[in-house]
């Protein structure tokens, strides 16, 4: 029994232990940042490793918490992302006095996500959600002295509070119409009466807010721009991924009876999201803001994939998330290094970047190509499979629309590449000394971007463990 508990909770446990260790370290006499960072990275590595041992399917706390191969894999992805991020922010955290607080916040939020993913009950889900959001709001404000940072945090906390209020209203109505909070039982009570539909829409809106789908996305850009790069990348990759996993889980497992409805909802959201995301991304000059909108557009494609409501759909989603982790973090990695060492965060600053930093330029370029979905990078496969999943529904209007939007997205990704390679610049960013750890992280990402696509085993594995409708 207890053994079961440990096995099934192992990832959460490791995290918890790590968090407490950090607290103790904080209390104890202060060590050098480097040593702490190395310690943390190693610990995260262990945490990541923990995922891959002894898989166990089962439920705990009478259905509050359940786990299976898929869920564990999803958590592994999040761990991986967390590890990469922490490696990339090495340069930035080395100088910081509060790096432990940073990790405390980040890891707590990660822990929250784990619970959210594993949740088998709306209450549990809500707790996990909040637990993952609130620390991030604090983390967004990590640059205490920066005006933008606190503005971002304010916007994040207020709008997320609002969204959770909406979400809760939805949950309350669900509860009112079904009388239960447990997913497994809930399904039976879903009959799509108006109140329930309303509840569902409120719920979806809550999700849409977290994954920043249009029109619930407006906080995204500001928060991404204001908060430190590390937090931004965490927001853009990990929290988004976690919520998406949960969303798929809910839609495919719980709201099956009203599948036809939520398909339409997703279509509407997807179309709006892709279009608006692209249209805004065209104009951006601040790199983080640019990536914010590009990630919004990406979410649109993900929604198309989910709307396929097939095993291919969910598999492609997870697959895409994996690729997205690599490519987006590769991009953010470069940005974070540049902003940490030079404080420059604008695309226009990257003009002539190739002349001074060929290595970084290639990393960034490959990342962008992967985001744009150009072969042979993995992004091509990811996007294509999402579209395929969507096409399965035979809604070719949507697919064409998305495909043409890919052209727009192409424009702004190439715009950056153009700045890097082609534009002349009298004062380009000088040659940067990239810390070994960050370099390593980037290489991992690039390798991931190349390999995940061409090596079909990855996809086939994900497909084998993922769920259909």
């Amino acid at each position, binding site marked *: 029994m207890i053994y079961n508990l440990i096995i099934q909770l192992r990832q959460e446990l490791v995290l918890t232990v790590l968090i407490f260790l950090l607290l103790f370290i904080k209390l104890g006499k202060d060590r050098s940042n480097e040593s702490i960072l190395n310690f943390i990275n190693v610990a995260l590595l262990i945490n990541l490793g923990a995922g891959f041992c002894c898989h166990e399917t089962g439920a705990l706390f009478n259905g509050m918490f359940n786990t299976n191969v898929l869920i564990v894999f999803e958590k592994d992805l999040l761990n991986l992302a967390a590890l990469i991020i922490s490696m990339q922010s090495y340069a930035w955290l080395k100088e910081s006095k509060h790096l432990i607080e940073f990790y405390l916040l980040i890891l707590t939020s990660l822990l929250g996500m784990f619970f959210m993913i594993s949740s088998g009950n709306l209450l549990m889900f809500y707790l996990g959600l909040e637990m993952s959001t609130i620390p991030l709001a604090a983390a967004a404000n990590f640059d205490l002295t920066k005006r933008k940072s606190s503005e971002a945090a304010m916007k994040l906390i207020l709008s997320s509070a609002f969204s959770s209020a*909406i979400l809760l209203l939805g949950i309350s109505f669900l509860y009112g119409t079904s009388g239960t909070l447990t997913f497994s039982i809930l399904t039976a009570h879903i009959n799509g009466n108006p109140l329930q539909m*309303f509840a569902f829409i*409120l719920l979806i809106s809550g999700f849409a807010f977290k994954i920043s789908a249009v029109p619930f996305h*407006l906080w995204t850009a*500001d928060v991404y721009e204001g908060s430190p790069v590390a937090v931004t990348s965490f927001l853009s990759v990990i929290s988004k991924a976690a919520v998406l996993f949960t969303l798929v889980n809910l839609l495919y497992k719980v709201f099956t009876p009203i599948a036809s409805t939520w398909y*339409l909802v997703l279509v509407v959201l997807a179309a709006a999201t892709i279009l608006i995301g692209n*249209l805004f991304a065209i*104009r951006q000059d601040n790199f983080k803001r640019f990536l914010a909108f590009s990630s919004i557009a990406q979410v649109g494609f993900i929604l198309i994939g989910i709307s396929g409501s097939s095993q291919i759909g969910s598999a492609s989603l997870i697959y895409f998330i994996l690729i997205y982790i690599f490519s987006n973090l590769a991009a953010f990695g470069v940005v974070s290094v540049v902003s940490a060492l030079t404080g420059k965060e604008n695309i226009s600053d990257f003009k002539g970047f190739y002349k001074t930093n060929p290595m970084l330029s290639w990393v960034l370029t490959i990342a962008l190509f992967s985001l744009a979905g150009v072969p042979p990078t993995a992004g091509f496969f990811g996007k294509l499979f999402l579209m395929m999943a969507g096409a399965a529904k035979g809604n070719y209007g949507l697919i064409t629309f998305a495909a043409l939007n890919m052209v727009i997205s192409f424009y702004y990704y190439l715009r950056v590449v153009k700045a890097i390679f082609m534009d002349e610049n009298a004062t380009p960013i000088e040659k940067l000394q990239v810390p070994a750890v960050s370099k390593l992280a980037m290489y991992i990402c690039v390798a991931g971007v190349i390999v995940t696509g061409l090596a079909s085993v990855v996809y086939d594995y994900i497909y084998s463990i993922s769920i259909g409708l």
Partner: protein
Amino acid sequence: MSNYLYILWIPLLPLATFVILGLFGRKYLSGIAGILGTASLLTSTILSFVAAKQYFFVDGKVNGIFQKIVALKYTWLEFSPNVSIDLGIIVDPISVMMLVVVTSVSLMVHVFSLGYMKGEERFATYYAFLSLFTFSMLGLILSANIFQVYMFWELVGVSSFLLISYYFNKPSAVAASKKAFIVTRFADLGFLIGILILGFYGGTLDIGLLIERFTSIHSTQFLSITSASFLGASMLTWGLTLVFIGGAGKSAMFPLHIWLPDAMEGPTPVSALIHAATMVVAGVYLVARLFPVFSMDETALTIVTYVGASSALFAAVIACTQTDIKRVLAYSTMSQIGYMMFALGISKNGGENGLGYMASMFHLFTHAFFKSLLFLGAGSVIHMVHSNEMKDMGGLRKLMPVTHVAFLIACLAIAGIPPFAGFFSKEEILTAAFHENKIVYGIALFTAALTSFYMFRLYFNIFWSKEATVAAHAHDAHTSHDDHSDHGEGPWVMKLPLIILAACAVGVGFVPFSQLVTSDGAALETHVDVVFSIAPVVLSVLAILLAASFYKNKNEKSDKVASAFGGFYTAAYKKFYVDEVYIFITKKIIFPFIGQPIAWADRNIVDGFMLLLAKTTAKISESIKGLQSGKVQNYALYFFGGVAVLSILFIYIWK
């Protein structure tokens, strides 16, 4: 039937010369290029004479009829199982006759050029092009497949282009070459479509088969092509007319003749070869080649007749007014070819009625010799005087006796004075015309008179009129690049061809042509009817005397007459403004009203539309940026709005 495969070597030798000179001539062989070319062509000439002897006098005839022999047939490009381009060699009277003509004239030109082009920088290139042309011309002659004809047709065109633009840094030469190529290309389009039509209905491109199928009234092909009609004319008419347009383009028939006078920008020997003797008669040859088919269609033949006749007259009139001697010759060429054309046009296929056909071929044969003689003569004159203008000439008979005599003979020949070659062939043509079509006969007669007039105008202007001052020409001779022999007339290599050709101009008239080349291959009995031939001869003589009185010694008569004609004279002098019309059409209509609009539209409309898409996208994105107001309360408001919209959609509308 013995083997004629060796004929293959006749075109291949010049080709080989071209390749060798083209690749290495410039660097290594510039010294011996001329000799090389001439030698290889000499071989070809000998071979073709051998072939002629064998065909005409040994085994060409089978029970009195000359056979069409296909000596070689190789499928070169297969379009579909039965429609394909087969490279072949056809041996029949006209092709053999043309072999002789082309090789011998070309040989003369080769020899002449040895002197004329001596010391040119691109001497080897010149001979390479010359060989290329000879090759293409021979290939054209021997073609057994109508598409093969087209191929060599194009090659002939391009080699003429290369030769005209031989002095490539002389803008006028470049312009002329462009004009020549483009005008003929335009005509070739007609030829091509003609081929497509004939090939489609005939179900083959092989000339033999086409003739066979289209001449038997009951063959399915014939029925289908005559039954199919477009704009009231049967497809057969269309096909033949289009093919004829191709021929007219090459043979400088009105109104496609405009390139020929300009083409005189090329070196004079080239004019002698291409624009007098060989290429320009390709059109005639083409019609002759397909004559059996033509003879099945009245309309087409009528077109041929009148185009030919009008060109003959038109050109003759213009020729009377030109002052550039080469241009005069060019127009006379055009006029003579007009003769050949209408001779074909009025002819029937086979038997007595085939007289026109025979006559036309005969005239082609004789004309080749005296016309090339005229050009080479003019060449050596120009070579000495360094000018094409009559006014710079005069009284040259003392300075260049050989040229003078040769030129005189040629003039007599073209004027149709017995017993020179031109007399016989012209006689046949006139006879045929007289029997078939009186109008044409009239035109022909008048043209004949004009011909002798302008030819002797030319002759007197060059060799008589004013007394030439030896000093002037000696001076010219001095400045001219290569050393002259004693009295200014080029070296022996330039005189020899003149002499030989002069001999031909006298002699070839006596060839028993009607025995050899006829529409149906059977010998044709012709007799020179003295009574009949009085009229033309007398006319010619009168014309010559007139010319003599005008131009033998400098006097004002000619100018008086010219002014008497007034507007007509200037019109003729300005070549009846045909060029101006062309220039107007291209420069004033096609460029500004088709080309530029399209180019503009491509940039501004088609491409503009693409750009517009981009711009609109950018504009939209600019206009909606207000959504991201930065006010967290608006964000919440939009959030709520989204909820509201979704709820309405999914609860009330799309339940």
